[in-house]
């Protein structure tokens, strides 16, 4: 306790020296914090944006009983597409009646097909289906740029806004969806364009889809009526997942052994391979920065202590032990670094708010890839703060370990002689 008190006093007694380390560490922790926030932001942009449209997150997923095994066994194409949830409406109704459940909605898989518009055919367009009226997972993620959201008519389509220019298509146009269904049957169905949308966090160069109501989607996918690939379940906010999962699993076993229920993460893994790689690079670079900073701090601290020889000698004369002084100076460095780290993170957080508030948007495809969406978004994550604070604690520990030992080798006699001069 005494060492803590003295460490505090020493910080203010050597104000100028403490300030230098404090400013340096603040700047460094702020810069590193902003780097990590950028990386967190681009991953969040991606997962919440287009990856969230492709694979909307939920608490639980109802699938065909054999779906997970078949996928793990390497089945794909038609054999995997056959593994669906049949009679999903009746099933959804029963699941929704469970008290922990907040929402149950069908989720489809993207079907790749072509579209024939005004004498031209475009291929590799992805189609998704929504149950109109039970589609918050889509509505919450998009904004309508022209026309209306899906009316519910089976032949209605909602197109991504970029398709208006890319495909030369307008509201009310009659288009033909061509190609083949998930089961290899020839496909040529007429639809009408009801509206255009943009994802709230858009990255159309990576993923964009055309939405159709379930009745229209099944014409494109080839599924039967009342059959969908998955049902997703959102639990009430205060519900713990594990008991709810067990309860719903028991319920489903009793009413439909053809399906089963899993945690979302067991069925879907959102793909962030590229952004994960960028994050690894950023983490490696922060390590390099921390390494160099560590040497800098160690050097400055040991120089400071050399200059404080008389102070150390006086402590020895007053009966302080070497261990006590080590503790005291280590606490002093720790406090300065910790304050600096907190200030850096606080300024960084402020900068994040300001930058997010400005809302820098871009239509440049390359920048969109760098940002993970069509706007610069910086995010604050606990893991980044923990990583940063941990790194600075490492700097402190290394400084205490390697710098203090030598600097405290001061003879009390020499200290007294020096003060006598």
């Amino acid at each position, binding site marked *: 306790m005494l060492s803590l008190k003295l460490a505090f006093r020493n910080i203010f007694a050597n104000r100028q020296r403490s300030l230098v380390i404090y400013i*340096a560490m603040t700047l460094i922790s702020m810069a590193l914090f902003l*780097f990590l926030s950028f990386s967190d932001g681009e991953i969040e942009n991606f997962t919440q944006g287009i990856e969230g449209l492709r694979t909307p997150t939920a608490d639980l997923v109802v699938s065909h009983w054999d779906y997970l095994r078949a996928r793990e066994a390497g089945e794909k194409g038609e054999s995997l597409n056959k593994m669906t949830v049949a009679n999903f409406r009746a099933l959804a109704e029963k699941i929704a009646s469970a008290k922990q459940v907040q929402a149950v909605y069908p989720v489809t898989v993207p079907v790749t097909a072509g579209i024939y518009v005004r004498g031209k055919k*475009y291929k590799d367009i992805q189609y998704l289906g929504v149950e109109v009226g039970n589609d918050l997972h889509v509505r919450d993620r998009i904004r309508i740029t022209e026309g209306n959201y899906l009316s519910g008519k089976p032949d209605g389509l909602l197109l991504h806004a970029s398709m208006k220019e890319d495909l030369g298509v307008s509201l009310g146009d009659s288009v033909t969806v061509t190609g083949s269904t998930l089961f290899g049957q020839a496909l040529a169905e007429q639809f009408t364009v009801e509206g255009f949308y943009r994802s709230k966090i858009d990255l159309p160069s990576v993923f964009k889809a055309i939405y159709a109501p379930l009745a229209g989607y099944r014409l494109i996918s080839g599924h039967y009526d009342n059959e969908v690939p998955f049902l997703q379940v959102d639990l009430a906010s205060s519900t713990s997942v594990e008991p709810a999962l067990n309860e719903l699993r028991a319920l489903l076993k009793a009413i439909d052994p053809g399906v089963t229920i899993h945690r979302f993460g067991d069925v879907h893994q959102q793909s962030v391979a*590229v952004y994960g790689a960028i994050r690894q690079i950023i983490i490696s670079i922060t390590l390099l*920065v921390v390494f*160099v900073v560590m*040497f*800098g701090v160690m050097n400055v601290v040991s*120089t400071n202590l050399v200059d404080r020889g008389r102070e150390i000698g006086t402590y020895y004369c007053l009966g302080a032990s070497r261990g006590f002084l080590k503790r005291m100076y280590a606490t002093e460095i720790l406090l300065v670094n910790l304050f600096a780290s907190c200030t850096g993170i606080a300024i960084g957080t402020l900068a994040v708010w300001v930058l997010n508030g400005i809302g820098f948007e871009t239509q440049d495809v390359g*920048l969109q890839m760098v940002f993970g969406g069509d706007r610069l978004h910086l995010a604050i994550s606990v893991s980044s703060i923990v990583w940063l604070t941990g790194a600075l604690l490492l700097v402190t520990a290394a400084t205490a370990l390697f710098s203090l030992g030598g600097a405290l080798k001061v003879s009390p006699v020499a200290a007294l002689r020096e003060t006598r001069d």
Partner: protein
Amino acid sequence: MYLHKLMFRSLLRHQERGRRLSALIALCIAALVFLLATMDSFFDRYVKLFVDTTTAHLAIVHPGAAELKRKPWKRGAEGLLLIEADGELLDFLRGTEGVEAVAPIVRTSGEFLVLSGDQQGSTSMVGIDPGDRQRVFPGLRISQVVERPNLGEQDLPVLRRSVQFWETIKVATDSIAQGDLRVRGEGLAQFAERARDALPRHVARDGGRDMPALLQSLDAALADPSLYREIPDRYRQKYDWRLEEAIAAAQALGDGKERVDGSRIRYVNKQLLSALFPDAISPVSEAIRLGVPMTFQTSSPREIKALSLPVVIPITFAGFAEAMPLYGFESFMDIRPLKARLELGEREFTEVAIRLADIGAIDGVKARVESWLAARGLDYQVLDYREMGAGYLPTALGVKVGLAVLAGLFVIAAIIFVTNMILLAVIKRRREIGTAVVLGMSPREYALLFLGEIFLIVTIAWVGGAILGSIVVAAFAALGMPGVVFFHDGLLYLDWNPRHLLLAYLFVLPGALLAALIPVSRVLKLKPVDVLRETR
């Protein structure tokens, strides 16, 4: 002159402190050299990789394709946008100063399909003369090329795009585990019964009693090279192409007469069992292999009806081509058979790719080509790699900006540390400064002396830092920096450049001198009386 002497003496007297400061600055300079080298190497090599594998330096394209090139992910309507490249154009290009290689190309997109009709992957197919390919795209990494084993015209060799991580098979193909079974409960018991009935030698009467015993029996059966002989005729009365294919594949291994890899026998037998009991055993995915008959399916270049037949080209993979590891989806084949299958005219291409000897000559060559085309009334567009790389270059630019910020951070850190060290030096040397001033040296001269010391310390540190930084850069130049997934094998090879050493010096020296001015300004304010009072 006496100032020089004093400076050296002072440095010798305070060599301990000088050494510390010097070591710290050397470390910062080494880090700076490393960061600058990483920054430039990443950008230059990324652009080079892109130019050397995907676009070349310039491309002549149809005017309607220009927009597609600027937005590489924007999809155009089906049908190819063709240009006419005659001998005159190609001769002009080849004769233009600065042009190293020219290749007319047909670029289309499509899917690889296996014999069962399942899609194995999509690709951008680049039809190019094999002789031109490596001259125009020297960065392409071609691997595992196999000699064509008497392939007829029906199997055109294709260098498949590199296998992406999601295309690899993640399950064991040479064993049977619980995860392979599609049945449970009553279905499992029925399957056990059928397996015992079909393969009595392998599945014992009590073998189907429980799941582990059944799996063990089936797994042991996989090792038998003559397993296909035991399949009862009744299973073959109704034609099933999957079963016949599987039997033919097992037969081709030669009943164990020739030495065949054991895992290959197990794999073929697993396919056989899956074909025999399709409702009970998951089908075995075919690994992406060379020499296997495949089809490449693409749209007709001219037909754009709502429903039209695709062009199906029988191919075989003759090797793998790796362009850009993250974004490279290009496969390559000989342009002649591709054009023949697409029924394109002799002069019809989608682009003419131009490689230059020196990237610096790009604007001049582009202007010459544009004026040549304009003089002949051709409205074709000439795009350079920057226009074609709108989707790729910002990634490199983003990394460059990030590393530049970090380099700046190091300079700031170095400046702060220098300020601290000099501040301490001024405090420590107050009496020395006072004595010098009393003996007739002006505070201004002493400040100059200080700055001279800093200049020397930074210069000496720079030599050390430059050597240390160069060693680190040389190590990464030889071994590559791992984990950089944008490059082949995830390795970024750094390029050593003396410019980085000079830049590090030019960044740190003025910064250190400026940082030194703050504490040195105190020296200028010193009065001999105050200093003498202190010493007394």
